[in-house]
Structures are given as C-alpha cells and as structure tokens.
C-alpha cells in the first residue's frame, strides 16, 4: 500500500502520520509512507485543506485529523 501524508509540516500533519502508521501496524498492512510538503504538489491533488491522506493515489481524507477508528476503517476498506 502506498500512503502519502499531505501537509506543510504542521502539528496536525505529524499527528495524522502517527495515527496512520499505528493503523497500518494494527491491521498488519505493509505500507510505504511518503510525506508531501510542497504546496504546489498538495494543491495538484485537489486538496485545499491540510492535513490530507492519499492512499494508492487516491485522496481519502482531507482537512482534519481523524479518529484512530476512522483511519483503520479507511485503510481496511482499500
């Protein structure tokens, strides 16, 4: 699974990343993480509110830090 965390380095982005890493560990998913901090690239994903989560080249969440349950559901649905 290819996971991108979109965000310009604010506290919320770090929180989203740690939540997502924990969720992949819980679910036993092997995932590659990438941080996208370049605003132009963030915008090119159609994302206007960070942090955002991109899984396998699809934006699945933007503009908020989800609950750990939400992240597990998002990843498990893939």
């Amino acid at each position: 699974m290819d996971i991108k965390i979109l965000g310009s380095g604010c506290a919320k982005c770090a929180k989203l990343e740690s939540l997502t890493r924990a969720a992949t560990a819980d679910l036993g998913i092997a995932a590659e993480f990438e941080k996208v901090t370049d605003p132009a690239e963030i915008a090119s994903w159609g994302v206007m509110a960070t942090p955002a989560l991109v899984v396998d080249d699809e934006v699945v969440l933007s503009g908020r830090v989800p609950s750990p349950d939400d992240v597990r559901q998002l990843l498990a649905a893939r």
Partner: protein
Amino acid sequence: MSSSTMTPASSPVSAALRRWGPVAAAAALWWFLYSINRPFWDWLLFDVIGLDPLSRLGESIHFFFYDVTKITLLLTGIIFSVTVLRSFMSVERTRALLGGRREGAGNAAAAGLGVVTPFCSCSAVPAFIGFVAAGVPLGVTMSFLIASPMVNEVAIVMLYGLFGWQITALYIGTGLVIATLAGWVIGRMSLERWVEPFVFETKLRGKVIDPSMQLSWDDRLAMGREEVSTILRKIWPYLLVGIGVGAVIHGWVPEAWFAEHAVGPLGVPIAVGIGVPLYSNAAGVMPLVEALHDKGMPMGTVLAFMMSVVALSLPEMILLRRVLQPKLIATFIAVVASGIIATGYLFNAII
C-alpha cells in the same frame, strides 16, 4: 464511539442521550459558572481575603481573576459552537460556490464565506492554488484570504468580552467591507502577472474530497472539543500576560500619560504599524488595548489595531511568497493596511 463498545440493545433514544446529555450538562455548567463569575470573585477577594475594592491593588487583582475567567469561558463556549457549526462547511464547498461568480458580488460572497468556512492559514497556499487554478478570480480569492483571519472566533470573543456586542458587530461589519473592497481593488489592478506562473498551470487531478461530508454528529462534537483544547493550549500564556499587564495599566498608569502619547493624529497608523508584525496574539493584545482604551485611546484606533494584528500576519505572507511575487505581497499588504487605517480614522471621527 467505536462500534465494539456499542451494546446491541442500545436504542436510538439512548444513543441520542449519550451524545447530547454531556453537551447539555456542559452548557448548564457553563451558564452557571458564567453567571457566578463576578459574585464569586467579589466574595473571595473582598469578603474572604479582605482586599479593598476601592484600592488600586484590590481593583487590579479583581480585574485579573474576573477577566481571565470570563474570557476563558467565552472562548470555550464560542469556539466549540463555531467549530461544530463550521463543520458543515468546507473550503471545497466554498470554492464551488465561488466558481461562477464575477468580481464585485463575488468579492462580497468570498468575504462572507471566509468567515463561515473552517480554514487555517497554514493551508493558505494549497487553497490559493486550488481557487485560482479552478478559475476563481484573483481578487475574489484575496477577499476570502483577508476575511478568513480578520473575522475569526478568537478576535470576536475578545472584542465581545471586553467591549460588548455593539463594537463586535461593528468590527465584523467593517471587516467584511474591508475584505470585499481590498479584494475588489486587487482584482481591478489585474495583478495576475505577479502570481507565480506555475499556479495557473497546475492541473487538478483526482476527485475532490469534501471534508464536511461523511461526518457524524459525534465527529462534529469531537472536533469542537479538540479545537477548544488546541486553541486554549496555544493562547493561555498570552491571555494571562495580556490580562495581567492590562490589570496593572488599569490600576497604575495615569490617564494623562496615555492621552498624551496615543491619541494624536498619528495614533492610527502607529497602531497599525505595531499591529501588523504581531501575530496570533489577539488574546494577549486585546486586554492591553482595552486597558489603553479605558485610559483614553479612541475606539477607531482600537479597532484598527485589532484588525492589523489578526488580518496581516508575517508567517502567512512568508507562506504566500511561494505563489505570489513580492510586488503582489507588498500591494496586498498596502491595500489592506490602507483600508484598516481609513477605518480607524473614520471611526475616530464618528464615534
């Protein structure tokens, strides 16, 4: 919230109780604390501890505890309510609403939407690219970017708590007018050539996720609680220092000193010049300004100062440098600052 903790027997009624019960209890507690705030500190400081209400020390200490409690309660209640309400809006929806607008009406719509859309200036750059690349005119985008920080919930709470609702309403109305006009002026100047070219070339790929969708009431309430704790944790040192210094000014600085130093014709531009580099310290700056107002600083100067603190911030300008050339950033600052200074003079003349 997790599904594993829900018992199969839970009916819709008990689920609603579990969700709204704590909200109702918190609202009742809030109202109780707010209404006993003044009697409580009167009783504790004057009756129990025995401070003299007419002494400088007694007055200052009472002012400090009463104001800290009042502002904290107002921030908690208003940030929570505003965050829950705003969770029904999103930047994506705002962009869709602004898509077909022309300048003029579009600027006014963008200013209004800037107030109700949940937006963090840390997302200013992706939002700017997203708006412009989707065809929202530059000036309309600017109206949004000006109104969003200027009319924000912390500023509103501080103004309401310290100056009352008339001044707050005046501030919101003026903020909307400045955002509308400044954006319109920037649009009229046709400054697209000073936007970094890659912005117009950005291709928006993928489907757009609207964060305001797929949220349950539990999510919205949780967002409200988190926002309250995030903001309070961020601003409490400023709040304490600001109210503390304000209390000292209340008690000790003579009115003549201030009347001499900040009321002259240059008061407004000086206040704006000091306000622009200060950032996100509205919570700390306002109690100070309230104390200064008490000592003779005119209301127009107060409003201009408050606006310049929140509307123009150095960190946001540095972020926007990524998409705007320095000439456009300078124009942006000049147009907004002129609007604020004009407002200050206007209100100094009529209030």
